């Protein structure tokens, strides 16, 4: 894979080490050399190993669990069943909603999906645990299951009124529109499939619980563990120094965590439980399958008069997951009449979960495919029709955009891609047996904002230390926080050590919704400013300071050295100054919470998502934006689709580190290629069971599937969105990739594929 990058537009042209610079990942060498120790790699004395036993039916009740053979197997320490595991309390959800006053059992008697945990075996070794788990015999009373959205028993589902968005009279305007299109778009179950599977080590010391677990949200998960076991929040410590990919799936404490922590408590020994790869397809939810109907009424000029949108996503029998399907539909284009409604349908599945751009991703597949269909219907270039319907303000919130560089994205992407050379007719471009298609689609993701806190210490040797319970799952938190502290204090980034992934550190909310960089750069900037103020204050006021006699109002710190702004007088290193004034360190805590926040506010902010600021708060509507231009080659005989070129122009506001932002964008685009062409959880309808629950059969792109990807930053600093001007990066780029590919496939073949993934049998 070759990756070309043009940059500089939104970066500050700064030194690599400062905010906006292209500093390489500071955690990279540790990961490449294997020195980085992941959560479940801790070596603990007396560690025991747990293995899960999962249901082999999708619906029914456990009749009997026969543990006789398993208990007699070599090395077995305990066999946990719903009857023998300790009773836990129900925990609140991620909004902080108080839980029902009833016990929680992470092992199921009532089966609502295939792969549900019904028992667990703990043994001296991993191999003994796995072997004994296979000896646990479970019998069931099976009942008919609802396989998926297309199951006749599934019905229309439950309306989610909170998702309804309406203005004008959309049905009437549609009925009277001169041009009308209506189509249904489907996306299958998709899975995060992180390289590092889910798992944990749980250790009890009295009534204190330590959990080493890959986590996108230490404080949220610590809260859940604390509530399950009836402990004070402070008694639970989560440790997650590195995360081998999360994509939304590692934000919550899940039932396997409750099982391992219960086993450790019952056994009085630390217990390790790591999911097998197949278990990662059933132990927690991937992206829910969705179905959308998009109807557009327009004039012959392609100007939209009405959009009527209906969406459905699947959820589990006893859990609720809403994948907001109208999120892009309602803001991408100006329309005087609009209606979007959504239902959820209960099926026998694990409750679906967050996966990179939940909501926006499938939503964009619907609307960005539909407007392409409209473009062909009225005979207007797919790029031109998007510009004709450009939303100058948020059509739903009726507020100004904070920044919306989407027009610039279309222009920059089209120019670089060579869109003007496109011939409009389907099947009009080819190279031998290869039909060539060019497609465009836009994407967007809201700017989610919350609060964070951090400690910045200036140490005796002049180095700087940053601590935060936020995490780095590969997106670059270690690096950008080092850059932020380095620039703010005035030291090289090499002299900054960032410590993350321990809930004992200052707290942080969820790493999800592309919010962390904006939140944490703000908090570190604040703490570092405060530390710098202390340092300069000491230098000016302490009688032992070499600057004391200078009578200066202020001093500057640059490259680790302190001097007067005018360059006269003494200049010393930070270490020398601290030594002269007799201090071994300076420490400052900074947070971005409102000034009058209570301890309860803070707890709520860091352990729930209830206090996140709406993206339409105040006078502005805040979003990241992007435009993808994609070339596909479709073999006319075989129906195989290969993406041969991608140019994407993206507006994430100011980039704290363009190198890392580009890397995330490219990752999102690659994941979007997988979604468009490969990814699908395939169900055996008789068993209600996914059959491709491994990485040989659940296909994600290989290097050979990924062509040149060129990303162009068109963002400008957006201070309505974050303290330092950035908007969301991580989820944006996947949004719009699948429709751009589907649109390109239509241009290549004349066939409109509305069901992902676009596999070869849909085209031959």
């Amino acid at each position: 894979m070759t990756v070309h990058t043009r940059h500089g537009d939104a970066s500050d042209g700064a030194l690599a080490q400062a905010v906006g610079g292209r500093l390489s990942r500071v955690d990279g060498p540790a990961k490449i050399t294997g020195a980085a120790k992941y959560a479940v790699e801790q070596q603990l004395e007396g560690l025991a190993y747990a293995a899960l036993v999962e249901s082999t039916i999708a619906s029914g009740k456990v009749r009997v669990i026969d543990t006789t053979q398993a208990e007699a197997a070599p090395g077995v320490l305990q066999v946990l069943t719903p009857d023998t595991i300790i009773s836990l309390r129900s925990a609140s959800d991620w909004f902080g909603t108080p839980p029902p006053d009833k016990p929680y059992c992470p092992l199921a008697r009532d089966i609502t999906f295939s792969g549900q945990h019904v028992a667990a075996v703990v043994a001296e070794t991993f191999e003994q645990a796995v072997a004994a788990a296979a000896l646990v015999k479970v019998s069931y009373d099976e009942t008919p299951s609802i396989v998926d959205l297309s199951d006749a028993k599934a019905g229309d589902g439950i309306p989610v009124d909170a998702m309804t968005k309406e203005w004008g009279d959309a049905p009437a305007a549609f009925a009277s529109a001169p041009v009308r299109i209506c189509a249904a778009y489907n996306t299958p179950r998709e899975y995060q499939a992180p390289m590092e599977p889910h798992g944990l080590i749980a250790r009890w010391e009295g009534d204190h619980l330590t959990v080493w677990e890959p986590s996108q949200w230490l404080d949220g998960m610590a809260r859940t563990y604390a509530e399950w076991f009836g402990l004070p929040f402070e008694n639970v410590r989560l440790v997650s120094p590195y995360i081998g990919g999360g994509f939304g799936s590692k934000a919550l404490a899940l039932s396997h965590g409750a099982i391992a922590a219960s086993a450790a408590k019952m056994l009085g020994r630390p217990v390790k439980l790591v999911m097998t790869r197949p278990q990662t397809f059933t132990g927690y939810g991937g992206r829910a399958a969705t179905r959308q109907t998009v109807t557009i009424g327009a004039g012959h000029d392609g100007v939209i008069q009405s959009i009527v949108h209906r969406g459905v996503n699947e959820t589990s029998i006893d859990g609720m997951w809403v994948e907001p399907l109208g999120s892009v539909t309602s803001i991408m284009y100006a329309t005087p009449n609009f209606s979007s409604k959504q239902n959820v349908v209960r099926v026998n599945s694990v409750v679906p979960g967050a996966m990179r751009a939940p909501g926006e991703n499938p939503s964009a597949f619907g609307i960005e495919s539909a407007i392409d269909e409209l473009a062909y219907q009225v005979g207007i270039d797919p790029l031109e029709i998007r510009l004709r319907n450009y939303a100058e303000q948020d059509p739903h919130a009726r507020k100004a955009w904070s920044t919306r560089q989407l027009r610039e994205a279309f222009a920059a992407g089209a120019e670089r891609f060579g869109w003007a050379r496109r011939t409009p007719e389907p099947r009009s471009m080819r190279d031998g047996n290869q039909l060539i298609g060019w497609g465009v689609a836009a994407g967007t993701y809201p700017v989610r904002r919350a609060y964070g806190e951090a400690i910045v210490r200036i140490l005796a040797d002049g180095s700087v230390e940053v601590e935060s319970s936020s995490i780095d799952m590969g997106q670059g938190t270690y690096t950008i926080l080092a850059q932020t502290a380095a620039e703010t204090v005035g030291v090289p980034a090499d002299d900054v050590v960032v410590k993350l992934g321990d809930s004992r550190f200052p707290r942080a909310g969820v790493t999800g919704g592309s919010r962390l960089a904006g939140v944490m750069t703000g908090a570190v900037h604040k703490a570092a400013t405060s530390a710098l103020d202390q340092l300069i204050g000491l230098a000016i006021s302490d009688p032992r300071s070499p600057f004391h006699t200078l009578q200066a109002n202020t001093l500057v710190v640059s490259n680790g050295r302190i001097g007067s702004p005018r360059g006269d007088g003494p200049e010393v290193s930070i270490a020398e100054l601290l030594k002269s004034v007799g201090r071994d360190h300076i420490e400052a805590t900074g947070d971005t919470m409102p000034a009058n926040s209570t301890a309860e506010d803070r707890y709520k902010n860091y352990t729930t998502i209830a206090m996140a600021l709406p993206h339409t708060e105040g006078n502005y509507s805040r979003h990241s934006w992007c435009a993808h231009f994609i070339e596909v080659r479709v073999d006319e005989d075989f129906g195989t689709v290969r993406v041969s070129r991608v140019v994407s122009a993206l507006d994430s506001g100011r980039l704290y580190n363009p190198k890392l932002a580009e890397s995330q964008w490219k990752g999102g685009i690659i994941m979007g290629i997988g979604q468009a062409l490969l990814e699908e959880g395939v169900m055996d309808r008789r068993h209600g069971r996914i059959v491709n629950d491994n990485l040989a059969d659940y296909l994600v792109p290989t290097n050979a599937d990924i062509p040149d990807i060129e990303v162009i930053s068109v963002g400008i600093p957006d201070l309505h969105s974050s303290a330092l001007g950035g908007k969301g990066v991580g989820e944006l780029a996947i949004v719009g990739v699948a429709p751009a590919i589907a649109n390109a496939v239509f241009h290549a073949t004349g066939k409109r594929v509305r069901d992902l993934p676009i596999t070869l049998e849909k085209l031959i």
Partner: protein
Amino acid sequence: MRDFSYLRATSADAARQAAALPGAMLLAGGTTLIDLAKCGVAAPDTLVDITHLKGLDKIEVNERGATIGALARMSHVADHAGIKSRFPAVSEALWQAASAQLRNMATIGGNLMQRTRCPYFRDPSNFPACNKREPGSGCSAIGGVTRGHAVLGASDACIAMYPGDLAVALVAFDATVHLGERKLLVDDFFLRPGATPDREHAIEPGEMITAVEIPGSAAARRSTYLKIRDRQSYEFAAASAAVGIEFEADGRTIRDLRVALGGVATKPWRARAVEDALKGKVLEPDAVRAASRLAVEGAVDHGANHYKIELAPRVVARAILKLGETV
């Protein structure tokens, strides 16, 4: 835990004898066996390791043909200059199989013993019925998810696909497998499932693959392996074709043609009907396409795998026409 014995064979004869005992299995690259042990399909009592045995990894290529030792690695064979020049289809089939890591580990003998990727076969805990695993238990695949299952050579007892690439090329060029002294055509080494899908290979207890021999031919020299798949690497064939062609002196009339299919059948599938229809004819696109339809004579689909019946003839035709272009 399930204990097993690990035995390092001291010679090929010792290995054969040890592996003849019930519950014993030979271990070479391990890329299939260890995988199947992890998913609970293979449960050997004894592993007889043969990877260190001398003299079984030779690759010899001359005018008469190629002899490839059973322990030669896939990547070595694929990169062998003689194989590349005299048997391009063999090299291409190997390069397009599996991943670089697997090709570096897997041996030629082990490759021939590769088991099916049928998801029902590979998941005993969720799908107890599998005639291949447990004779008489039934077939979970029939009526289930069948997108990757066979349309040719299946039976009421089993529709599992043969997943490999190399053997498709071997069958096309009349290769033989050496089981010590006994030699048989690779085409005969692989068995159709019939009523006994648990028996996949014509190998007896006490026998061990020692080599594969491919006779040299003009058709093998002008040959190719075309593999069509959902993704570009590390993926099994949706349909594939090993094709070799020899022209008369006029450079247009087909003297010899070899066609075998992968990704569509329960075993590597020689398509002699296509060969017979085109031998003696002038290479011409419409005739090639028409004849290629014969590749799927007798094919039966199970719903989701119907596309293979459409796809396979197109793959065959493209491969033949591609070889014709290089005249």
